[in-house]
């Protein structure tokens, strides 16, 4: 497993996908990429599903607001521990009340209002930066245990 993960670290272990407007297929593509990369890293089925669900929530949010953006996957290593990093950047409307969104139960879209807070729960590291009128950047990491 660890050997497998090490083989992934390097130039080939980075992948980015464009997000354009309302194209929902990107959700499927990104979910597949997250699952595949985390499986190759040696993540178990539950962690693979957590990672795929988290990226689904975040990209769904971008697509729902018809924003343009990009998702980047990177296999990382810190103190010998491999992990998967996912960064989603969009040029959408931005989030006015980040704290409230991170607490959950708040939505102007179509979900349960728990998408973003849910993604945070499913990942090990999570950061969200947003500026109204400029866009949002979500940074997430999951470590192999």
């Amino acid at each position: 497993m660890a050997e497998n993960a090490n083989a992934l670290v390097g130039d080939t272990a980075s992948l980015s996908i464009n997000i354009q407007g309302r194209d929902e297929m990107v959700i499927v593509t990104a979910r597949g990429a997250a699952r595949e990369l985390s499986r190759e890293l040696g993540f178990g089925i539950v962690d693979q599903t957590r990672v795929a669900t988290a990226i689904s929530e975040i990209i769904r949010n971008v697509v729902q607001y018809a924003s343009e953006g990009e998702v980047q996957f990177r296999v990382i290593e810190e103190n010998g521990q491999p992990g998967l990093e996912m960064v989603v950047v969009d040029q959408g409307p931005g989030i006015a009340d980040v704290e409230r969104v991170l607490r959950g139960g708040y939505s102007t879209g179509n979900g349960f209002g728990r998408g973003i807070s849910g993604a945070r729960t499913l990942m090990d590291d999570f950061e969200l930066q947003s500026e109204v009128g400029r866009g949002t950047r979500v940074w997430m990491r999951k470590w192999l245990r």
Partner: protein
Amino acid sequence: MNIPVLQIERFLIVSVQGELKDNDVTALQQNLLERLRRTEAAGVLIDLTAVEVVDSYMGRLLRDTAAMIRLMGVPTVVVGLRPAVAVTLVELGLDLPGIHTDLNLERGLTWLRTQMR
């Protein structure tokens, strides 16, 4: 993607394969409700065996679909949730309240039979 609606005994069966897009879901909901009215089916079973990820959006769609079917006076059972999907849903805080779930197709059908009047 056209999602087929099958019929076994007096029940409608929907087996969801892979990703559902907005349009698919709207079409499926209308198709299901229309079929319900036409066939006077006694229950609906939604099979998620092939679904690898259920996010909060899809959770809401499931809940809405079950609510529409209930408004027509018909029970719904959702079956075949994968273990990893069940774990993730609970962690997301989405335990699908108000939706009856069962382990598999056979048990779902058994439950639907008990609901027949």
